[in-house]
């Protein structure tokens, strides 16, 4: 009798409506807004142009999102700690130049070049992390400085030359495979989506992730609870740097060159993606999948407006309005949860 009662109660407790489970997968209520905005944009452009909802076109939008989307993963990690990284695009460019220059000009094995490029980017992350934690400067200022350093190093090291024909190993992630019908997709997109899944898991299911949120919410109480916040923060910056290195490799795959002028606007673009995805710039709140939605929203609008033949100045206007909306929504929900 008692056993059956217990079994029944266990069954009741563990049952979760399919709707709630779906909501959880989408990142919870925080990212419902960005997801709805993405759906709205997709619906709008499908209505306005019959070229939009085709498989090859949607695949294009994903491929075009690889550069900023991957960078935005690292940016999200840093923003969650209430920091910001203005150097991300140029650290990626530095990685691109290191990987391609070593392989093409110095005959280094492409695999070793990739590792060295990843290391170089992680090194910049380490520099950012050390300056933020040891010298105690705000992330905005530190990464502004490393942005300038990275810009200069890229130009000096590359001699302002684009490095071409880096070889099939370095451009591997630009290769495509068929998805069905006429739709193909690149390995780069698969890597980007995989990284979103991997870091989404790390953020929500591991101690490292939980501590990042805690650090962003309140650095003082996190430290008082025994977490070594300095070490945690440095690890976040180093991991972000590594992610920028992966972005470099994916961009080499997409464009087929090592471009010293790559990534110059990517810092703002990645921050836009993070903000549009519902992550708070004040730290401690936001889900990584929101950043994916944010990246895709920008890509959908850009692609959709070209298909509609609308002037590109409106794309810039719409993106700006969306960012203000997203930040306002974040501020309002923050006030409500505190109230």
């Amino acid at each position, binding site marked *: 009798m008692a056993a059956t009662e217990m079994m029944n109660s266990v069954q009741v407790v563990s049952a979760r409506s399919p709707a709630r489970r779906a909501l959880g997968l989408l990142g919870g209520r925080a990212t419902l807004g960005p997801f709805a905005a993405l759906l709205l944009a997709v619906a709008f452009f499908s209505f306005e142009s019959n070229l939009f909802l085709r498989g090859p076109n949607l695949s294009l939008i994903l491929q*075009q999102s690889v550069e900023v989307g991957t960078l935005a993963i690292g940016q999200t990690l840093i923003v969650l700690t209430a920091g910001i990284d203005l150097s991300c695009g140029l650290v990626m460019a530095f990685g691109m130049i290191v990987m391609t220059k070593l392989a093409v000009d110095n005959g280094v094995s492409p695999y070793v070049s990739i590792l060295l490029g990843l290391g170089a980017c992680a090194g910049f992350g380490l520099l950012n992390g050390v300056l933020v934690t*040891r*010298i105690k400067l705000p992330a905005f200022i530190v990464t502004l400085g490393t942005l300038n350093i990275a810009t200069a190093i890229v*130009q000096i090291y590359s001699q*302002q*030359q*684009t490095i071409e024909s880096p070889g099939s190993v370095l451009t591997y992630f630009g290769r495509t495979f068929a998805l069905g019908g006429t739709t193909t997709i690149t390995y780069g997109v698969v890597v980007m989506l995989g990284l979103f899944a991997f870091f989404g898991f790390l953020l929500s299911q591991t101690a490292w992730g939980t501590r990042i949120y805690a650090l962003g919410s309140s650095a003082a109480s996190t430290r008082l609870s025994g977490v070594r916040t300095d070490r945690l923060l440095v690890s976040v910056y180093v991991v972000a740097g590594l992610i920028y290195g992966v972005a470099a490799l994916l961009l080499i795959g*997409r464009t087929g060159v090592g471009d010293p002028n790559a990534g110059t606007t990517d810092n703002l673009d990645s921050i836009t993606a993070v903000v549009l995805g519902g992550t708070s710039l004040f730290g401690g709140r936001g889900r990584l999948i929101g950043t994916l939605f944010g990246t895709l929203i920008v890509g959908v609008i850009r692609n959709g407006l070209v298909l509609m033949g609308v002037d590109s100045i409106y794309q810039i206007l719409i993106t700006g309005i969306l960012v203000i909306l997203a930040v306002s929504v974040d501020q309002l929900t923050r006030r409500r949860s505190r109230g």
Partner: protein
Amino acid sequence: MRLSRWVLSVAAATALGLALVGGSSARPDSSIKVGLIVKTTTNPYFADMIKGAKAQAKKLHVTLLVASGKFDGDTGGQVTAIENMVSAGVKGIMITASGDAVVPALEKARKAGVYTIALDSPTNPTSAVDALFATNNYNAGKLIGQYAKKTFGSKPAHIVMIDLFPGPAVGVLRHNGFLAGFGTAGITPKDTTQKSASQVECAADGFGDQAKGQTAMENCLSKAPDVNLVYTINEPDAAGAYTALKNAGKTATIVSIDGGCAGVRNVKAGIIAATSQQYPHRMASLGLTAIVTYAKTGKKALGYTDTGVNLITAKPVAGVPSKGLAFGLANCWG
């Protein structure tokens, strides 16, 4: 505490060291001083301009002061540079203006007796400077438009235009010049907005950047899959457009502007059909010579000097003057 004190002392020592080194290499003040302010030093186009100015300065034994903004559009940085150079006693300033905000500072400099020259892009109003040494961007576009028209003949053209971004005059001039050269009626160099034509099936912004040019071309390919002629604002965008076409398994005639060494190599490789080559080196060199003449004789050369443009192609067509790859590679910049 110990670490920050160490950082402070290293910084102080560095500053002191730089001051000592800087002081010891100060040049005699009797030399003529000329200023050059570019948009950014990271763009190889402006780097070539600086090289041209430095070479000419060495030849004429004058002192060249170089400054730039931090990014394309950093008018604040350029204004500061103008003011500093005027205090340093320059006889003339050459500037590639990042925007109209530099005009008041230039007017002030002119009133102080400094000869002001605009390079590459005109100021707004053009009377804000004494002289302009620049490419005629409208003509640069017109040349490649004429080349495309002659190459296509009576074949129907499906055109995609990869432009810069909304704002700068250079984007409008090149775009309109191309259409005028291709045969579109009703376009003049005085038009300040981008015009269209019936054969243009898509236009998107490439921002002069290779990756963004690729994105723009990809989006236009979805819209205009039959494209056979692509106008690009510059050569990095042309390279991006080519990659987009290649990935889609298509080919098209790509024309561009700039004549950088990488771009001419792309003409050689068959990626770009023809490009209008311009000469930043020459702009700076002529500008500097004009300033030295002013310093020595008090005479200012006024107005616009066209520093020239040449069509570079491996496949010349009758009726459109052009130069070959050898010339292109010998005179390219970057």
